[in-house]
């Protein structure tokens, strides 16, 4: 217990870094994922193909490899980033196809009459997407999107392997000097993660229940 109390500032710093990674790459992945989902349903074949390739490539690449690319390969070709930025970019890229797939499943889940009606009253592709399809799709996909964000929360831990001092990295440092308190330290870190994931999960459950009533 002492080891945790003594190193509390370090843990809080690590927790804040985890939160920062989560927030920044979460927003970036939402934006990127929405763009990819839009491309994926667009009437232009080349864009659909591009989005599909992007999704397949990234979804089948381990996160570790994506982060390795951002942290160690980009500097090789002259793009130098600090490690936090590299991890943020890597996490955003890795998460974006999962967001895109969640949104796309929402778009495909909307009854075809909605799209037909939107087109029948003369809305363009962009308008029907923006005014009719996406608002409904987003509502339907909020629970799966939250699940993606929960996964992202857990994935931020991988950044520990790439010189980012977040929760897991802090725990490893603290354990080095407090080997006798290993279990307590790791449990403390687990509690920090649960502080993020349990509220998110509760939100997903609550929203899922509400959406189910609406349908």
């Amino acid at each position, binding site marked *: 217990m002492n080891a945790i109390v003594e190193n509390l500032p370090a843990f809080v710093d690590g927790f804040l870094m985890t939160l920062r990674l989560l927030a920044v790459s979460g927003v970036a992945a939402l934006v990127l994922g929405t763009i990819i989902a839009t491309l*994926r*349903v*667009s*009437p*232009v*074949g*080349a*864009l659909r193909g*591009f989005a599909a390739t992007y999704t*397949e*490539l990234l*979804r*089948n*690449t*381990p*996160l*570790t*490899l994506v982060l*390795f*690319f951002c942290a*160690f*390969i980009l500097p*090789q*070709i*002259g793009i130098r980033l600090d490690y936090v930025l590299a991890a943020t970019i890597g996490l955003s890229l890795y998460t974006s196809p999962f967001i895109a797939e969640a949104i*796309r499943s929402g*778009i*495909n889940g*909307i009854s*075809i009459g909605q*799209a*037909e009606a*939107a*087109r029948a009253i003369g809305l363009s*592709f962009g308008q*029907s997407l923006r005014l009719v*399809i996406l608002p409904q799709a987003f509502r339907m996909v909020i629970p799966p999107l939250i699940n993606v964000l*929960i996964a992202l*929360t*857990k*994935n*931020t*831990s*991988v950044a*520990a*392997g790439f010189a980012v001092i977040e929760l*897991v990295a802090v*725990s*490893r440092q603290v*354990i080095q000097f407090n080997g006798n308190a*290993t*279990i307590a330290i*790791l449990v403390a*870190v*687990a509690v920090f*993660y*649960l502080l993020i*994931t*349990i509220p998110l*999960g509760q939100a997903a459950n609550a929203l899922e229940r509400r959406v189910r009533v609406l349908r």
Partner: protein
Amino acid sequence: MSVIADVPGPRARRWSLIASVVGGVLIVAGLVWVIVFLAQPRVNAGGVEVPGMFDPSRLDILLDRAMWRAIGRGLIGTLQMASVAAVLALAFGILLSMMRTAATAWVRVPAIVLIEFFRGMPVLLMMLFVLLVFSTGSYWAGVAALAVYNGAVIGEALRAGIASLPRGQRESALAIGLTPVQARFQIEFPQAFRQMLPIIVAQLVVLLKDTSLAFILGYNELLNVGLRQGPTTFGQQYLFTLFFVVWAVYLAVNLLVSAIARLIARRTSGWHRSGRRGRRADLVAAQLGGAGVAGATAAALPSEFGTPVSPEDAATDG
């Protein structure tokens, strides 16, 4: 085709073709730019000029047998961890789903706690926990963490599958005199397993990808052998080339498993629709595999009721 784009007329088709060509050209131009950018020689931090990324001095490693042997060793390490963890995760997931759907609160509540806890934990943290607390060595730390985490996810998927079954399945099972346990094992679980099989296989792809986390523990898997030891063995200038070799191997393995998942998804979804009368003929034909129509009704019956006897049956032919 998605919902939004309805059948295009001639003008829309022309417009779409033009946009497609322009988009394609832009994408190709972007790729060409990236390749030209990569091929340029550049000056590194020490002020020394280094050759471009496609320079022969960087690519000759592709012809090196020792490099491919190393990659093969890494791949074997990855597959060893993934296969053992996958089997354990399936077993653990099935066990958890059984406990989670039990009628007795004493069994159900611990399962809920376990599933929620393990699903909410980063795999890397669990690997570290097993490694440091049980001193198992990196291999078993990786296997145990992956099995527990993915087992919890699979358990939850199976629970959702059981919950999504029509209530009548269980009621009719009880009505014909099966005990609740028999109803669960013989009627509900096989259907749930079948229905959730695509999700389970997709989760196994996640498991396979997550084995790369074990490189942080120092386990000799693909990423560690290829990208950590590779550049020190063969020379730092090969890092870029090695990265693409490792990436290609990961993609090949994962896309293969994903393709199997999609195949299963298509077959099971077809199976679900064919549970209704409409596609019965297709189903019978598929089941007989062209053996003739004589046994058609006999073959159609068990699948009409959709109850393979054991989960193993569902796994092999689902």
